């Protein structure tokens, strides 16, 4: 009989180490080696990872929620200082600069397409599916406008000529970086691979308060609120897997996974049943392989897949 407690203890140490900021590629190789060395390790690790992720709900704890009577007071002092950091930052910013008119160039990608474009200043950009980007990179001006879609930037830094990305009323200024920006209407997501980016939100009201994002940070901007998920380089990698033609889901719900696939395909997935829309999906998929994904839903999850030409309906 196996000593499950010891294996569980080692799994726990791996999980904790993996959450640390200095987790490297070599560490991952070591972990994979351990996981693959026997099946006990793997199932114990999966189980612990799954349960530990459920405990992420703790992040919703607010210092002002009623405390259980026996909780030490000290804890509340700690969480009180943490809350403003952990919670969403609400940012209001003025400044809207009138844009110098330079010669614009517009790049457009079709649904399912991907394109790498070198700009005149040496900066390289990569456009994901269904994206429209306007650029004005000439002389002293380096500005681009993301009208829709998703773009990855590798900016050649030049302190005298900042590289500015306009996303609706938001502005991103590169401070020497690789980062990606995704826009869906009013919703903007920024993921930083290396270096730093400065983000300014809507010019609505009083104070100007730009946020500086660093490696591993993911900022989500919706309306006037900006939330930042720090130190999440693994998640940044997942978000950027489109550059390799992949979609990575980590406990995503089926509805979100379907809308991700729909970005890449003219044929659209429709989830007809709200309960299965909440099902959790994890895994790596080719973004243009909708059939592979629906096959998995049919075989592994036992769902009904009805291909009707323009749409594929998924039901229980």
């Amino acid at each position: 009989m196996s000593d499950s407690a010891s294996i569980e203890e080692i799994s726990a140490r791996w999980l904790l180490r993996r959450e640390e900021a200095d987790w490297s590629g070599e560490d991952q190789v070591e972990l994979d080696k351990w996981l693959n060395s026997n099946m006990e390790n793997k199932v114990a690790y999966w189980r612990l990872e799954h349960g530990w992720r459920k405990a992420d709900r703790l992040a919703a704890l607010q210092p002002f929620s009623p405390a259980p009577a026996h909780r030490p007071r000290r804890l509340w002092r700690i969480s009180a200082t943490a809350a403003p950091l952990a919670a969403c930052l609400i940012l209001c910013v003025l400044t809207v600069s009138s844009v110098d008119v330079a010669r614009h160039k517009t790049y457009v990608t079709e649904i399912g397409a991907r394109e790498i474009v070198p700009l005149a200043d040496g900066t390289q950009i990569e456009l994901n599916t269904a994206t429209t980007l306007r650029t004005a990179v000439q002389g002293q001006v380096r500005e681009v406008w993301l009208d829709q879609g998703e773009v990855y930037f590798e900016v050649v830094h030049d302190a005298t000529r900042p590289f500015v990305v306009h996303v609706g009323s938001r502005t991103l200024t590169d401070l020497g970086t690789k980062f990606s920006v995704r826009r869906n209407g009013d919703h903007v997501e920024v993921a930083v691979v290396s270096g730093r980016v400065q983000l300014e939100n809507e010019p609505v009201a009083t104070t100007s308060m730009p946020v500086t994002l660093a490696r591993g940070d993911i900022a989500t901007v919706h309306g006037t609120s900006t939330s930042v998920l720090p130190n999440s380089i693994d998640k940044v990698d997942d978000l950027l897997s489109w550059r390799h033609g992949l979609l990575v889901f980590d406990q995503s719900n089926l509805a979100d996974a379907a809308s991700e696939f729909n970005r890449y395909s003219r044929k659209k997935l429709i989830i007809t049943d709200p309960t299965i829309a909440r099902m959790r999906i994890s895994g790596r998929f080719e973004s243009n392989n909708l059939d592979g994904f629906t096959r998995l839903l049919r075989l592994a999850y036992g769902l009904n897949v009805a291909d009707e030409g323009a749409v594929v309906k998924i039901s229980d």
Partner: protein
Amino acid sequence: MVDDEVVKAWFVQEILPLEPSLTRFIRSHCRQAADVADLRQDVYVRIYAAAREQLPRQARPFMFTTARNHLINCAKRAQIVSIEYVSDLEASILAIDTVTPDRTLSAQDEFRRVRTGLDRLPPRCREVVLLRKIEGLSTREVAMRLHVGIDTVEQQMVHGMRALVDFMLGGSGKIRRAATAKRSLEKERNR
């Protein structure tokens, strides 16, 4: 061979939520409470091995069949169990199939559950887990904040994680010490 990512998704989605039922099933057929977690792990390994070849069509019956077969094998190997015990097990699967399915917890239920689990942890352990989960502090940062050694923090986090996960998956949320840890603890005591 089924892709490991697919097996993992299936295992997490279909099997792990059934853990409370599986634990109950094993406990009701196993006299040594200390063996329950080990037996459960054995069952998980067998399920994983089978799923890697082909994903079972239905998780629940497959899991109970696997558990029952494993318990029967263990019982036969131990050579101390009566025929009645094995035939009880043979019959048990029929009873299990009619048991009401495990309820999937809503987000709110899960939140409540994790808070309860947290409150069951010893104070030091709870504090460390909170700093990790709410403030997202690294092990080193927690150690600095609490003025204790990194090893201590790591040990507390390991305990906290294991107990909390156990509770989230329907267990008692008590800290179960590993055999090796127990041994070293005894060694320390004897010193």
